[in-house]
């Protein structure tokens, strides 16, 4: 199971198929467009800035998506190397169908986000954020194309920095942005340090830092070294994918970024964490031990359940979507982990199926998360708030956005005809079929993973019903929600593109399965374990078949029949006339928004069930009258659902680091003599040590 890392060759060698020419042309075009857009955005006047930047980003994405599609339809690509562009290692780029899949998904997200950004940023686009947006899209496209450790790390860092700048875009308006960006900066760089350490450890045992050299060296490494490398890259890439417990930055940074950036981060950037795991775990290290993949499944399952629980409790709509990203990346990691587990235990067909499920879930998640973030951004644009408890009744003022969010919410729920249904169905099929002839550890892990996926799916339905119902239906809960107006056409177009992608993936997933099969084969697995006609999805050599299109048609027919029957009912009982009656309001005054079920109250039963897990904090302050303790002047009730893992894990660490820093302050009193003394003693001590050891 070795990676299909391309042999070193130059792009102009004869015998390179048209696919690769197209892929490289696409990538180069994307890079050129992004750089040109960044430069032009810096100089054009403010009223054209958002348009230039958004259109450029969309074109970058389009070129990237074309390159990705070309790469997926090809087999192996040549490596493009350019020494001297970066110090020490130079740049080397290669695309194979696996990276092509990620490039295509990223490009498609960038197209929708770019079109949307034109209207979202409007006339108030600042120069830095307009210039950085296309660069961010380009860096997202470049990461999967990297073919050496140095290039990967450089692109990774470029992606982290550009996204950090974009998160900071609105820092003048809200002080929370700065805090979120600090969290993001620290965590993304700690992640980079982990990846860097892991890849350096691997490079130290090989003749170069190109992926081909690394993959050649890996089989000769001891299991301990390989395990250490995997654990390090798991920490680094896992933090980017938002896996628990390294997810703390995600629900902070994603809500505070502008919405099209949130969409790019949440639908494209986090995927690259999974890509890194696949590339290093399967491609460079070539599979490895069972415990790696059991660990990945466990982390993925915990992330999925914990993420969706946090999402179910959240009243901030963008935070909710951010937590749901943790959930979906957890599911993708369950798929990737299951693929590794099956591969190491000798079930290549199942491994291919699990990886196909993970890759399909990456794409479906990208589609619906883009749509949801763009719709949430449209709400934020119109009302200025992200608090579900202050929204409601948006369907009157913003019918198109309501339709978009509703379609996205349906897509995010793992129910037909939702987009996530197909990929989660594939995942569950792979996990269930893996039970045959499994070892003890596998036999314990897989049923737990299946139940985690099932619980996640159920909670996701509750979460998105709540978000859609309280946010868009019923009566407006505030003046801002009541005065909401529909967003500009470019924003609606961005949402429309993402919605169309959702529809394609939901109804005819068979259309993308051949591409996924090639990507799976590029990762070194049996490819065609899931065969798709356009209508029916069939699992080769396994008992399993589903047709999302027919399911949807059946659902539609049942719904229409039910509606027709209900309409026919009063006609049959024609003797009783219909009469219009007042909405029942218990006989009292008119129904007011204050009587509505809020997002908080919708989540309350769930919160009660998962009380031990989420540990909500309630605070009741009662002020008594001066005259008597028995009379209440006012009562104040507050409820917060803090992130428990964060509280238990991060706060002690932060406190310890703070205490350490304070303690070290005594070493630096500001006296030059003392500092010279430190230098003198350090050199002397070093010399003594050297003298003694040699």
């Amino acid at each position, binding site marked *: 199971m070795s990676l299909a890392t391309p042999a070193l060759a130059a792009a102009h060698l004869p015998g390179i198929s048209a696919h690769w020419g197209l892929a490289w042309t696409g990538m180069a075009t994307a890079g050129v467009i992004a750089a040109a857009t960044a430069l032009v955005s810096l100089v054009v006047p403010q009223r054209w800035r958002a348009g230039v930047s958004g259109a450029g980003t969309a074109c970058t994405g389009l070129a990237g998506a074309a390159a990705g599609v070309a790469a997926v339809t090809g087999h192996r690509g040549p490596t493009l190397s350019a020494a001297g562009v970066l110090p020490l290692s130079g740049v080397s780029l290669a695309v194979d169908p696996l990276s092509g899949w990620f490039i295509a998904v990223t490009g498609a997200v960038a197209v929708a986000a770019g079109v949307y950004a034109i209207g979202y940023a409007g006339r108030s686009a600042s120069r830095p954020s307009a210039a950085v947006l296309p660069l961010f899209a380009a860096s997202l496209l470049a990461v999967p194309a990297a073919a050496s450790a140095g290039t990967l790390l450089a692109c990774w860092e470029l992606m982290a920095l550009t996204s950090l700048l974009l998160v900071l875009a609105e820092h003048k308006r809200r002080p929370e942005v700065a805090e979120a960006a600090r969290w993001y900066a620290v965590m993304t760089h700690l992640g980079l340090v982990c990846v860097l350490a892991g890849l350096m450890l691997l490079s130290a045992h090989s003749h170069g830092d190109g992926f081909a050299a690394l993959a050649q060296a890996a089989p000769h490494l001891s299991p301990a070294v390989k395990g250490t490398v995997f654990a390090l890259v798991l920490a680094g890439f896992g933090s980017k994918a938002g896996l628990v417990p390294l997810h703390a930055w995600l629900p902070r940074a994603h809500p505070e970024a502008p919405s099209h950036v949130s969409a790019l981060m949440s639908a494209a950037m986090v995927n690259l964490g999974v890509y890194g795991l696949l590339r290093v775990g399967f491609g460079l290290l070539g599979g490895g031990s069972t415990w790696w993949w059991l660990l990945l499944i466990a982390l993925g399952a915990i992330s999925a359940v914990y993420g969706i629980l946090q999402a179910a409790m959240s009243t901030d709509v963008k935070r909710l979507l951010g937590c749901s990203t943790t959930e979906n990346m957890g599911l993708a990691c369950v798929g990737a982990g299951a693929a590794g587990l099956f591969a190491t235990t000798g079930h290549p067909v199942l491994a291919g199926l699990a990886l196909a499920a993970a890759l399909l879930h990456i794409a479906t998640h990208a589609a619906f998360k883009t749509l949801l973030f763009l719709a949430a951004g449209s709400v934020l644009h119109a009302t200025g708030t992200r608090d579900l408890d202050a929204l409601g009744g948006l369907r009157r003022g913003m019918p198109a956005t309501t339709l978009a969010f509703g379609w996205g919410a349906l897509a995010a729920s793992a129910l037909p005809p939702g987009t996530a249904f197909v990929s989660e169905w594939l995942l569950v099929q792979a996990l269930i079929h893996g039970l045959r002839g499994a070892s003890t550890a596998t036999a314990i892990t897989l049923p737990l993973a299946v139940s985690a996926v099932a619980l996640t799916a159920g909670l996701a339905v509750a979460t998105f019903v709540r978000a859609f119902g309280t946010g868009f239906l019923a009566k407006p809960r505030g003046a801002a929600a009541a005065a909401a107006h529909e967003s500009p056409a470019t924003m609606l177009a961005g949402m429309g593109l993402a919605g169309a992608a959702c529809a394609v993936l939901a109804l005819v997933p068979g259309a993308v399965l051949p591409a996924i099969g090639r990507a799976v084969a590029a990762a070194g697995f049996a490819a065609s374990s899931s065969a798709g006609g356009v209508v029916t999805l069939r699992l080769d050599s396994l008992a399993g078949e589903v047709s999302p299109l027919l399911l949807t048609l059946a659902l539609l027919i049942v719904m229409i029949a039910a509606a027709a029957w209900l309409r026919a009912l009063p006609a049959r009982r024609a003797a*009783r006339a219909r*009469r219009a*009656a*007042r909405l*029942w*309001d*218990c*006989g*009292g005054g008119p129904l007011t928004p204050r009587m509505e079920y809020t997002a908080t109250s919708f989540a309350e039963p769930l919160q009660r069930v998962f009380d031990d897990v989420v540990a909500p904090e309630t605070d009741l302050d009662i002020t008594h009258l001066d005259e008597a303790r028995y009379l209440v002047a006012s009562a104040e009730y507050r409820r917060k659902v803090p992130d428990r893992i964060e509280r238990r894990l991060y706060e002690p660490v932060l406190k310890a680091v703070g205490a350490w820093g304070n303690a070290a302050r005594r070493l630096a009193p500001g006296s030059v003599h003392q500092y010279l003394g430190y230098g003198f003693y350090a050199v002397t001590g070093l010399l003594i040590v050297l003298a003694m050891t040699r």
Partner: protein
Amino acid sequence: MLSLWRMIRATGRIAEPPPSPGAPGAQPVPLTGQAEDAKRALGGSVQIRHVDAGSCNGCEVEIGAAFGPVYDAERYGARLVASPRHADALIVTGVVTRNMAEPLRRTYAAVPAPKLVVAVGDCARNCGVFAGAYGVAGAAGDIVPVDAEVPGCPPRPEAIVAAVRELTGR
């Protein structure tokens, strides 16, 4: 759980036998002609919403007793429900106060047709001792059309059961 089963077994059946026709306090309540049609349409199963329009709660205690285990009005096909939207009939108790006049009208409007109204107690029938008092909008019949009346202050549970049986016809 076991103690509950033991209690059920030890208590046994405590419901009174159905009152014989002609017993005191169990006189059949005459229904209006229109109400007979509604009664026929309901077919022996009547869901009842109770509206306290300004009662002293004496009648409420007796209604509670009538639907309790001893008089067990539910065995005749009647049931108290929590919303007028679910109800076929209203039981109105107490004199209708000014604050409750409009809610009573709306509650009546909320009941799907065919519907019946029973005024239980002297206050609901003709304002009882509160007739002409400040804050009184009138008897139940002044606000909504009443189909049957149960006299008494408060009426005995047998009388309420008799009225319910008149509605269900069982």
